[in-house]
């Protein structure tokens, strides 16, 4: 077995939390059950990985199997990478029947015709998700297995989730190959990025609980009162305001959990509006400014702002439109007319 393959497998195993190693190796299926029995999964990871590599030697693993292990690892722990969402467009034709074999063949061919030194692996999962792992080389060097990009393509949708990692220069090539292989016309990057792949899917596939413009009849107020206000000596003077905030918040964010995003970024290209006496900018040109919101769970944080008394309800539509518009990177230009026209621009 190749030295580099052995090392790659060893490092991949080391990334896995110790309690999960056995399960993942079983999912991999490259080592037999009897072989796995011989490994002590309670020793330190360093030793486990050595044992696993030893077994892989016996089975003569090659880069293809190692790549599959890597795909499995990334499928179980996708949140270690940053994912961007891309959307493909057709020129108005009918949706053709998706042939996976054909897709794989075309993809490989297109990619390899431009760059010979690539390792390409596929793995299919439920809900029509095709995972593609690409290890990039250069025209003069072999593929570097540690410089990988991941693509998750749901064949029944025009959406592709890409985790490009280091080599951004290969992105156009990758996009081209995807378009050709899937018989679409072109592809563009949506302004939507996050660590949480599932949340990105929730947003573009509209799987999160959306706000519907429902009229909540008065009796519903009873709900808020019960557990908190157990002590009848505490009287909330602003109860109706609190309830209004809850209602507005629920209308905007819906009832269920929010998709998990870490950032929202607003690039402002608007004029600085100040007191004429302040005289900060004589020139009438846009004041460039970048506003970035970050949080371990941005949307839940925004949802809790008004009930916590830290912001007025309803929140600015610039913040609340994130899931509906499926974007968390915005460019805001000067308002020319009605409010909706003011933001958004590719």
């Amino acid at each position, binding site marked *: 077995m190749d030295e580099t393959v052995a090392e790659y497998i060893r490092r991949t195993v080391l990334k896995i939390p110790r309690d999960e190693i056995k399960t993942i190796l079983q999912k991999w299926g490259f080592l037999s059950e009897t072989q796995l029995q011989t490994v002590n999964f309670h020793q330190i990871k360093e030793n486990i990985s050595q044992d696993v590599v030893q077994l892989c030697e016996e089975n003569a693993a090659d880069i293809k199997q190692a790549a599959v292990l890597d795909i499995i690892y990334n499928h179980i722990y996708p949140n270690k990478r940053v994912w961007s969402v891309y959307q493909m467009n057709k020129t108005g034709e009918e949706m053709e029947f998706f042939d996976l074999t054909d897709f794989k063949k075309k993809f490989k061919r297109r990619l390899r015709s431009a760059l010979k030194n690539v390792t390409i692996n596929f793995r299919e999962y439920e809900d029509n998700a095709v995972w593609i792992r690409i290890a990039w080389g250069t025209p003069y060097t072999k593929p570097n297995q540690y410089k990988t990009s991941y693509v998750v393509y749901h064949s029944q949708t025009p959406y592709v989730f890409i985790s490009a990692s280091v080599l951004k220069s290969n992105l156009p090539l990758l996009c081209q190959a995807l378009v050709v292989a899937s018989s679409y016309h072109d592809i563009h990057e949506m302004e939507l990025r996050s660590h949480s792949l599932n949340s990105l899917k929730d947003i573009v596939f509209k799987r999160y609980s959306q706000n519907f413009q429902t009229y909540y009849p008065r009796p519903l107020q009873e709900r808020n009162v019960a557990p908190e206000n157990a002590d009848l000596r*505490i009287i*909330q*003077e*602003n109860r*109706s305001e*609190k309830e209004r905030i809850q209602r507005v918040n629920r209308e905007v964010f819906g009832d269920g959990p929010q998709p998990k995003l870490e950032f929202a970024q607003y690039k402002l290209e608007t004029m600085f509006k100040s007191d004429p006496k302040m005289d900060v900018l004589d020139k009438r040109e846009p004041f460039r400014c970048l506003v970035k919101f970050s949080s371990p769970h941005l949307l839940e944080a925004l949802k809790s702002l008004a009930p916590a*008394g*830290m912001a007025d309800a309803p929140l600015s539509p610039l913040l609340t439109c994130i899931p509906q518009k499926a974007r968390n990177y915005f460019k805001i230009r000067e308002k020319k007319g009605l409010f909706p026209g003011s933001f958004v621009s590719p």
Partner: protein
Amino acid sequence: HLATSLPLPSERDHLRPRIDLIVFMIDIKSKYSLKNIEASLAHVDASFFLGKVCFLVTGVGRVNYCSVDMNAIWKLGEVYCSPVLFCELELEGIRVATAQRLLRMLQICAGHIPGVSALSFGSLMRGSADD
């Protein structure tokens, strides 16, 4: 009675008993909180400032998250002639102790402690703070 700001909603006027003590809670982590208090103070009748108002600054345990200028708070206490208390709501011991203090103040302000008036107690508190 808990309120998020003043003035109090007028629809509940007839349900409200006499107000003996107003405690303005300022969250040291939120500038918004201080602004809100400053705006609400304008709605308080001047007679309350004779010992029936107190400022309670919360969140003082988390020094890193302090967003409010301490000078602004001292100034507030000075301008409105009212004592400033500090506490950390997240620690049960301090929470209970602060509640007991406030309760004591309330008893005085409501006139339940013979010989001690709200005004005299207020100036006592201010006097000790200046030391």
